[in-house]
């Protein structure tokens, strides 16, 4: 059902390059089937928001894209590179996909700037000097250049998540994955993180966001995917999904979250 949906939903950007190609993706955790056959193409510059009840497989779906979860069956290609092929250098693929986690996962034993500099320096992509300059400019972008020398435990949740975003941008990835980036935040800090994400989206970043922030989806998403029980149930523009949902499960879910 989703293969057909793709053609319709993507007519506005059909000429753009496919950044993420997913075909028949299945993921089992031992006996438990979490993803039961997912098809999706995400094109350059698209902001795809994935919504759905907890346990529907959204996070697992996202984690299959950068190989944090081993894929049981199907194909995932990132910018043409097959993630399921054992000969693919996953480290190279991951350099091109940033990921932001629900619980930030900043490295607590390094300063904020060191967190951002780690990957480019260790991968010998930049000198320390270059990485430091790049790091400072990214921190400035997320409004935290004044916190460069502070250790993560001294930051608020919202600040931590903004640093995490800066860190994942250090290698200039073409794709960014967000796994419930605001779910662990106090309500007053959600806005500052969404603000950074919006400016990334406006800058043309290809983004895949698992979130419960319907407002963000309405404002920024080029496409919304509704998942339930390991399947993509419905997808379309925010307008289509939020104003004229077709599937009963989508309607039930939206009634619960929007009421």
């Amino acid at each position: 059902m989703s293969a057909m949906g793709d053609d319709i939903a993507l007519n506005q950007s059909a000429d753009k390059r496919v950044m993420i190609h997913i075909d028949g993706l299945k993921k089992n955790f031992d006996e438990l089937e979490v993803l039961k056959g997912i098809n999706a193409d995400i094109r350059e510059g698209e902001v795809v928001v994935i919504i759905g009840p907890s346990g529907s497989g959204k996070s697992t779906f996202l984690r299959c894209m950068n190989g944090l979860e081993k894929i049981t069956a199907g194909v995932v290609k990132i910018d043409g590179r097959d993630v399921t092929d054992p000969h693919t250098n996953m480290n190279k693929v991951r350099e091109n996909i940033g990921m932001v986690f629900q619980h930030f996962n900043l490295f607590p034993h390094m300063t904020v700037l060191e967190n951002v500099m780690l990957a480019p320096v260790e991968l010998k992509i930049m000198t320390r000097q270059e990485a430091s300059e790049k790091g400072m400019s990214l921190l400035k972008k997320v409004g935290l250049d004044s916190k460069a020398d502070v250790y993560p435990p001294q930051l608020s949740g919202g600040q931590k998540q903004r640093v995490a975003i800066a860190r994942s941008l250090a290698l200039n990835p073409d794709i960014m994955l967000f796994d419930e980036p605001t779910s662990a935040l106090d309500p007053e800090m959600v806005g500052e993180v969404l603000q950074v994400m919006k400016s990334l989206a406006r800058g043309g970043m290809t983004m895949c966001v698992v979130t419960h922030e319907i407002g963000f989806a309405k404002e920024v998403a080029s496409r919304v995917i509704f998942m339930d029980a390991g399947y993509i149930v419905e997808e379309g523009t925010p307008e289509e999904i939020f104003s004229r949902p077709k599937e009963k499960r989508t309607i039930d879910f939206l009634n619960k979250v929007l009421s």
Partner: protein
Amino acid sequence: MGDIIRVYWTLLLRSLGQTMLLTLLSLFFAFFIGLLFGLMNVSRNRVLNFFGTVYVDGIRGVPLIVLAFFIYFGIPTAVQAAGFSDFRLSALAAGIIALSMNAGAYMAEIFRAGILSVDKGQMEAARSLGLPYGISMRKVILPQAIRTMVPPIISQFIISLKDTSILSVIGFPELTKAGSIIVGNTFAALEVWGIIGIMYMIVIVTLSRFAKKLERRLNVSNGG
């Protein structure tokens, strides 16, 4: 008692020094043995897991005194039989090998527990940045693991320090051996073993105090 100390104080201090030397050298090697086998035991590679488990279980399943005999008497005999007739192994070398292997097995478990105590998200974040497993381990996981490992490492240090007394059986001139010699000369068993016991105790209590202080300081810098 005063007489014994007056006559034998150089021997006592020198043997205490030997005890400390043996402990420190053994712990130094045990650290790297523990790191190696600890990493093998947390890896996803079944073969590495297998060898790591064999080492840890094997060494922990053998009393230190048996291991010491095996290395001090067994290995030279075997090497000499293989044609190297002037091969010798000093009591110090054999003692260090036995104690390092023994403490290394326990240290492997300390490393394993330390690594597993670091939040799973840390490795995921490092790998998602494109960092290979080795760099992620070295730069992100181990520095955090070491902090939680300081108290068990010091307690292993204390255990190994006491275990050096077992090595008196292969003739290594450490503190307990010195005790036997002095008792042999003076027949003053009560006083001599009392003095030896107190000497061990002073070193160990000082170490534990130091450990507590260090632990508290680490907790402070970890806080928040």
